[in-house]
């Protein structure tokens, strides 16, 4: 077995999340790589949620199916996931909550009684015991986890922290007593510390590294985790954070801040993005830089608020009245999220237009193990006009479409921006010849930008007869499926696109030139990238592998979808 899938499930409020992160970190510090998936319902207590920690020694950028170790904090978890358990398998369970475990499957029952004899502990301590037990089964020392738990529960008081530490240690002991099919004890710690972080955390880091100092927005799952990740670090780095009354206010406030010179970001999810679309046109028309994150979840409408999907590509590309320039990025890993956020902020300033980053719940919430050097220092490029000259014209016509940008209150001259069609000095006009010039000027910016984009990750033999094309968060699962196929001597090429607009037509056409058959893989029902591909290049998928049940792709799902095609 190259890697191990650990599913920890229970009801909301039982602390599945709060234990998973310290556990994951402890594994990473030990020298393992972890991929951690979060699957939760739109409720705060009760119901069913689970995290899946995939653990191995090589890089892991994808979830996979099957469960090797099932941690059940309630009976429902056993009922829902026992079928996934593959032999040898093992169930760790809460003996007070779980009354039936499947016969013939090795199991380890934990209770507050055995973990913390005599202490009046809450559920959290039981989780800590389970985490300790996991480490025990894997042959990983418990000390790292114990320290992390203490830090995690520090704000609940020293007693709770101590209980958790003790429970973890006891769980570890109990597990060490068992025969375990898993053994990672010989793994050596990484030469330099590795990171465990989510896509949205990677993007938050990118934003902060690149000098972001204004963020505003309205809460909405799954966008909120990015908003949180920046806000929690805002005081330390001097970022102005404002929660707005609605998403309309969010984009307009961010535009106001950007116009006045802040490096600004806003974001939302589909329903909130609907309310931002008028602001998108405003950004394009006033040529105000702005980065907007749209974190996708399945729709239409409220849909499945806490699940994942890739259904907003077409919408975001065409949102707002008339033809208006924009860029759109779709990162596939936290490190790519970091890099694309830096690019997005710099491109927004350079081309003075809105730049979108499309993510999704899976991308935003899932924790991935990265090397620290995948997060290099960011360059901050602002492209401002120092501007000593008077007679400043905000929308001066230039061959590149890019007018020199000055900020109000810096240097001489007045900065006049207008959502109506306007003359070079920013005042509204009914002159239809000026209109044509301005409209063309704005759209011309896309040509320069297109020249700077590509964002293609390719893998597998360049002459493979079949290419699998995907975008955004599907990178990890698709890459793994492709590498499994190639390992089985089925030559397949992976083509992942992360800079989708302005569409890098030539780069895409040339990377796909060798393929005789195209398979497009995406998390929606109508094949939105496939439409775009056809629209932009004339190429179209011979086969689509789509998923729209709210869950992320797995390599197994993809391989099933490819059966009969490869």
């Amino acid at each position, binding site marked *: 077995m190259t890697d191990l899938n650990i599913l920890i499930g229970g009801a909301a409020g039982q602390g599945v999340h709060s234990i998973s992160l310290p556990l994951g970190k402890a594994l990473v510090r030990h020298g393992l790589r972890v991929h951690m998936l979060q699957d939760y319902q739109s409720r705060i207590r009760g119901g069913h949620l689970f995290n899946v920690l995939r653990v191995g020694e090589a890089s892991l950028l994808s979830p996979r199916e099957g469960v090797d170790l099932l941690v059940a904090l309630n009976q429902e978890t056993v009922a829902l996931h026992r079928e996934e358990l593959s032999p040898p398998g093992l169930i760790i369970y809460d003996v007070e909550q779980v009354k039936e475990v499947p016969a013939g499957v090795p199991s380890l029952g934990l209770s507050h009684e055995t973990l913390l004899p005599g202490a009046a502990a809450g559920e959290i301590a039981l989780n800590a015991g389970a985490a300790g037990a996991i480490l025990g089964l894997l042959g990983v020392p418990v000390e790292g986890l114990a320290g992390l738990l203490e830090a995690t529960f520090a704000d609940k008081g020293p007693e709770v922290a101590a209980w958790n530490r003790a429970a973890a240690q006891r769980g570890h002991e109990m597990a060490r007593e068992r025969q375990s099919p898993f053994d990672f004890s010989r793994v050596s710690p990484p030469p330099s510390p590795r990171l465990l972080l989510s896509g949205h955390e990677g993007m938050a880091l990118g934003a902060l590294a690149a000098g972001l100092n204004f963020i505003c927005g309205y809460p909405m799952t799954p966008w909120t985790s990015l908003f949180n990740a920046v806000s929690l670090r805002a005081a330390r780095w001097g970022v102005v954070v404002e929660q707005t009354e609605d998403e309309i206010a969010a984009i307009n406030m961010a535009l106001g801040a950007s116009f006045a010179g802040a490096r600004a970001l806003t974001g939302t999810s589909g329903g909130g993005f609907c309310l931002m679309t008028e602001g998108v046109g405003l950004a394009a028309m006033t040529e105000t830089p702005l980065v907007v994150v749209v974190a996708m979840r399945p729709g239409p409408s409220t849909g499945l608020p806490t699940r994942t999907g890739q259904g907003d590509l077409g919408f975001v590309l065409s949102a707002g009245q008339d033809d208006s320039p924009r860029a759109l990025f779709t990162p596939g890993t936290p490190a790519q999220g970091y890099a694309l956020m830096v690019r997005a902020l710099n491109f927004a300033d350079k081309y003075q237009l809105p730049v979108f980053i499309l993510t999704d719940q899976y991308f935003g919430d899932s924790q991935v193990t990265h090397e620290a050097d995948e997060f290099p220092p960011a360059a901050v490029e602002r492209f401002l006009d120092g501007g000593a000259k008077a007679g400043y014209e905000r929308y001066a016509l230039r061959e590149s479409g890019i007018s020199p940008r000055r900020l*109000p209150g810096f240097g001489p001259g007045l900065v006049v921006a207008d959502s109506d069609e306007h003359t070079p000095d920013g005042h509204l006009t009914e002159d239809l010849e000026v209109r044509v010039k301005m409209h063309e000027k704005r759209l011309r910016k896309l040509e320069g930008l297109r020249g700077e984009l590509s964002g293609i990750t390719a893998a597998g033999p360049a002459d493979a007869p079949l290419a699998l094309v995907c975008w955004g968060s599907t990178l990890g699962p698709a890459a793994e499926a492709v590498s499994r196929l190639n390992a089985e001597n089925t030559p397949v090429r992976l083509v992942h696109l992360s800079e989708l607009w302005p569409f890098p037509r030539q780069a895409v056409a040339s990377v796909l030139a060798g393929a005789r058959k195209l398979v497009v893989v995406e998390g929606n029902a109508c094949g939105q990238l496939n439409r775009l591909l056809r629209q932009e290049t004339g190429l179209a998928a011979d086969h689509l592998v789509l998923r729209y049940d709210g869950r992320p792709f797995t390599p197994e799902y993809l391989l099933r979808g490819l059966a009969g095609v490869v």
Partner: protein
Amino acid sequence: MLPLDLYQGIESAWCPGCGNFAMLKAFKQALAELEIRPEQILLVSGIGQSSKFPHYLRCHTFNGIHGRTLPVATGVRLANPGLRVVAVAGDGDCYGEGGNHLLAAFRRNPDVTLAVHNNQVYGLTKGQASPTSDQGFKSLIQPAGVPYPPMHALALAVAQDCSWVGRGFAGAADHLKDLYKQALGHRGFALLEVLQPCVSFNKVNTYDWYRQRVYRLDEVPDYDPENEAAAYLKAKEWGERIPIGVIYRRPRPLLEDAFPALAAGPLAQQVVPRPVAEMLTDFA
């Protein structure tokens, strides 16, 4: 006092006789007397006749979209508190489409002056009822008249502790100029609503109609704009008698002061690379 022609903008497209002209003039005079130079002031407007105002002035301008002046103005203040920010909006823009932002601005209290050009009608779109149109006001959409009473915007402001609330009248030029000066001088969110006759589409609330009704609060003995209960009643007074002047004043902390980063100057000067290695320690 600065020369008035310093503020000369592009040629206006307003109808002859429109109340907006008197407002523009009074505003220029207020700026000139306060010696605020065009480079020091940023006007944010939405869409409507009134929202063309900044083009007819010389100043930094962000003429945005219908109803959204206040979030933009707040964003500007949160990026550069060195800029003096005035939001200019129509009654439709600010009380109709943008009502939700008004409620939020009352709470936030940014140092923004909001001038509402209240002509009780949608001017630019040719005469539909606005939230302040009197009950019974007729339009092509409501040929039988608006079936319900107008919004009480100033009472809203008082009820939400707006830090400065006033009303002017385009037909009372000097008084209006003085109100502009007070609102501009106030530290905090100031709502100045101006009764602005629309000669093309509002044949009910004309100069004369207003003239017969308005009275000055500074001529009302003992009126204390810091007394909330009294201010509430004045804010709701409408019909036979309409008060103009400073209706309410309530000193409150500024939004901008809640953000330590702003103490270090405009955010534009703080856009610098940050040490990612230090941030990464959270994730190791």
